[in-house]
């Protein structure tokens, strides 16, 4: 029996499923307790708040009709989604880096969360067909993607300890709205609205630019995490094989906000600013003016205004500002921000240098807008991350890719939910009954696996829905990746013998 599904008993199941984890790879420092669980995702699916995507302040119309999202997605719906819509073939090509199945896919770890909340780690599949078959059989509520191992993860128990090692995985980044809770005023915890999604948009822009310009990566896939965040998958061959200390270096390079809840000022940059910071600041300036000062109106409350003052360097200036703001409690953030310069100019403080104030203001802009990454996710090769295109069990939304070039246009609240998509297929099929448009029957084998024969090709189910542009984006992303992969392979074949031709010692 290939899978051992344990009963749903919540604390029981983890014991059974994970009891062997440290034994399998602990001697090599492979899996430690810290790594087995996401940094802190205990709030990922708060049972009660699955539904409450906050819409009240949003000017954009809600997704058509009364929100059809059920709290938690039905198992039949989920199965239907896998059968008819999930792009197994493209996911395979993406992870396999080619058409012919290789170890890149075969030794890749998948971790399935089943409908009963059991968690199956170390699943792997030799081909796309077997992958699809197993997903249909297990019908997981979601699944995650881990690293490629040196051997097949399913064989781990037959190996001596420490023999199975992770060899490659995409460099990943995780941005989560909860990390912004202390600077967003519109929502808290798992909720998002258009106003605070702007933070994610900024983060995507800054990180994406840096990865491309500074590190020279080209193949970066951004994915909406289904509720209130985004993931990045850097798929360049050089990025996939980075060892952990290099990943840590990148995370450190990109991390500007340091310190936990009690460390006071979180941005303390040395001058002159590093070109990466200067560029980011340039990108973020306007966002600060719009999002922080206007949309969020962050400094409106006395408490937040006090926090702003604590970040400013000069006591007498702070006194003047405090007096001014106390006398007009409803003063909007934009005016408060302008007050800083205005009062500084009037010479309230003799000791304050303009440069010091400018630096402090730059630090503040960064503290309120610079991306807040969950750095632990990026630092470890073995970290698991939710696959693109799965359904977020809370919202029912599909984890669709985001085009970083059009990050501004992306609207998380209009991302299709699984129920909407299935309804769209039905609507399409009703409009073009079989025969008039070569619509295929919803059989299991056809939807994801059929060939690309152009003219007589049957329309695939996803093409009848709003999922199409997202899958098209994913396809073109894969095409670019495969092209580079082919070039790299040819180069490897050309240079390899030359390297080996060294004379032997004896």
């Amino acid at each position, binding site marked *: 029996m290939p899978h051992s599904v344990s009963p749903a008993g*919540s*604390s029981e199941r*983890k*014991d059974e499923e*994970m*009891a*062997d984890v*440290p*034994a399998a790879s*602990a*001697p*090599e*420092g492979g899996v430690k*307790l*810290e790594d087995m*669980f996401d*940094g*802190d995702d*205990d709030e990922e699916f708060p049972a009660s708040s699955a539904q409450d995507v906050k819409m009240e302040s949003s000017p954009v119309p809600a997704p058509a009709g009364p929100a059809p999202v059920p709290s938690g997605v039905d198992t039949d719906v989920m199965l239907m989604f896998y059968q008819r819509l999930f792009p197994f073939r493209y996911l395979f090509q993406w992870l396999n880096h080619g058409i012919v199945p290789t170890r890149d896919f075969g030794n890749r770890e998948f971790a399935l969360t089943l409908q009963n*909340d059991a968690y199956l780690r170390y699943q792997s599949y030799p081909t796309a067909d077997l992958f699809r078959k197993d997903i249909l059989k297990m019908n997981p509520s979601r699944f995650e993607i881990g690293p490629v191992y040196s051997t097949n993860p399913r064989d781990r128990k037959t190996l001596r300890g*420490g023999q199975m090692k992770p060899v490659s995985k995409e460099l990943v980044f995780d941005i989560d709205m*909860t*990390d912004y*809770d*202390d600077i967003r005023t519109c929502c808290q915890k798992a909720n998002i609205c258009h106003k605070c999604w702007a933070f994610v948009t900024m983060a995507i822009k800054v990180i994406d630019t840096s990865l491309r*310009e*500074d*590190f*020279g990566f080209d193949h970066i896939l951004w994915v909406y995490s289904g509720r209130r965040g985004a993931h990045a998958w850097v798929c360049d061959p050089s990025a996939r094989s*980075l060892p952990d*200390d*290099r990943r*840590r*270096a*990148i995370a*450190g*390079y990109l991390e500007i*906000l*340091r*310190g*936990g*809840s*009690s*460390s*006071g*000022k979180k941005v303390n940059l*040395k001058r*002159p600013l590093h*070109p*990466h*910071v*200067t560029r980011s600041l340039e990108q973020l300036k306007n966002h600060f003016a719009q999002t922080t000062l206007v949309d969020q109106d962050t400094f409106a409350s006395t408490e937040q205004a006090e926090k702003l003052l604590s970040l400013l360097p000069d006591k007498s200036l702070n006194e003047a500002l405090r007096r001014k703001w106390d006398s007009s409690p409803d003063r909007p953030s934009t005016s408060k921000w302008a007050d800083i310069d205005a009062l500084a100019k009037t010479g309230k403080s003799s000791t304050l240098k303009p440069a010091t104030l400018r630096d402090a203001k730059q630090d503040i802009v960064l503290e309120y807008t610079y991306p*807040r990454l*969950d750095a*632990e996710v990026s630092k470890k090769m073995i970290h698991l991350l939710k696959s693109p295109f799965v359904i977020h069990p809370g919202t029912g939304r599909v984890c669709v890719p985001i085009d970083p070039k059009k990050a501004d246009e992306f609207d998380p609240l209009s991302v299709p939910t699984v129920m909407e998509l299935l309804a769209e297929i039905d609507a399409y099929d009703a409009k073009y009954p079989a025969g008039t448009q070569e619509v295929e029957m919803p059989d299991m084998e056809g939807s994801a696996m059929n060939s690309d024969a152009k003219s007589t090709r049957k329309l695939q189910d996803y093409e009848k829905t709003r999922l199409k542009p997202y899958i098209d984006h994913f396809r073109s992303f894969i095409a670019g990746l495969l092209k580079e992969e082919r070039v790299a392979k040819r180069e490897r074949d050309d240079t390899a*013998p030359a390297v*080996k*031709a060294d004379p*032997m010692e*004896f």
Partner: protein
Amino acid sequence: MIRQDAHRIDPKRRATIDHKKRQFAVPIYKQQDYPHRLNLYDTPPTAEITLEQFEQWAIDRLRILAEIEACSYRNKSPGETDTQITPLLQKYLPLSSNTSSSNGAADLRLRNERQKDHYSHFILRLAFSATEDLRRRFARAETMLFRFRFQKDDSRERRAFIDSLNLDWEPVGEEERNEIAEHLANSTPGLHRVNDETWYKVDWEKVPELVERRSAYMRRGKAYVPGREQLSMIMAEFTARLERSLELTSRALPRLDEDDRLTPILNHLSKNFGSAESVYTESEGHVDGAEIRASSIDSLSQHFPLCMRSLHMNLRKNHHLKHFGRLQYTLFLKGIGLSLEECILFWRQSFKGKTDDEFNSQYKYNIRHAYGDVGGDVNRRGRGYPPYSCQKILGDSNPGIGQTHGCPYRHYSVDNLVGLLQATGVSDKEVLRGVREDVGKQRYHIACNRVFESTHKNEIKKVKEDGTWSQADLDTIVHPNTYFKRSYLLKQLAKAPSRDA
């Protein structure tokens, strides 16, 4: 498509590998002549030495490495480490520069010194390649030793040594340098004139340290590094090579299985490489006679070091701690002798907002795992992880947003730190001033010990006077559990002054 066999030999090479010839050929070893003081230890030694030399050289080097590691555990500054190490190096493992002798590198004394350095390194490689943990510690200590010597090296010799390494560094042309001069100046701290430096373009992966600190200009995967940052690059190179060859050594190690001359020596050596973390025994934190239960944690928390105290206060305030905070605190509680059942009870009561189901499914497993009640064989046999030492807490990643673990002396802003200290009852101005100073100099453990000495000054004075505690009992604290135990015992003594009488 037919996939080609990876083992296929390139046709041009076939003739050179004649396994018959190779098998019986007399090995021709490269004679070592040590032209440079420093050594990247690429070539293993091949000449013969006596067993006594084998052992003695290894022990001498081990002494140095152990001292280096101890300094790092005590979080000593580079300057302090320097004064500690220099006399030891002079005594056990001298390594003089070419200029110190009139004959230069040909001098017999220099040769012998370098030979000893070379051989002892490889002997210890054998001794410390067996387990991942030993390998990591060995590589760390060796890297620090190398860095130490590299910095002390004569600048001319250092250049000659670097030139001999053939590293893959591409010099930046003048045109390109002028084009990006501003970026170079802004990204390289402490630089005055861009044109004074020789710039190199290297793959960023070669200088992860610089990249992590954002101390180099980056463009399309290349880092622009000034000549003086060589240290960082050489260190990375040294560590990378050493780690790789340790890995190889560990695989070759079983060949020594039948040997009865070297194996005992090697085993003995690796056992003597004691570390602050492995020395920590379970009984260290336990306090006899103290009743440690979930309900008594609140009152005991006055004896906790600041890191745990702040976790406790945060927990009481928010009824929640994030993962790493929970882990750090759970392990500490385990260390002071809280049983697993009581610990689960403690967390259950502390997480007021969670239902039983949520608690059982999201938190309980981690607690049990930390105690070694569940998990793999290794975890269970080791009874979970050891409580974190100061070294571990200081060295781990900075707490992120909303996280509360770590060391307050290091990870809090000074103002928040002082606020926290005052909240815990430390208000002596002199002490607070000292703490500020220590933290400014990054001597976090000294700051912590200073606070301990101030809050327990009467008790310490007393035990010193009546001689019940020797100086060794009052050594610098480098473990949160030691802090607790000492604090608790001192206060108990004060409560029962007539115990000895």
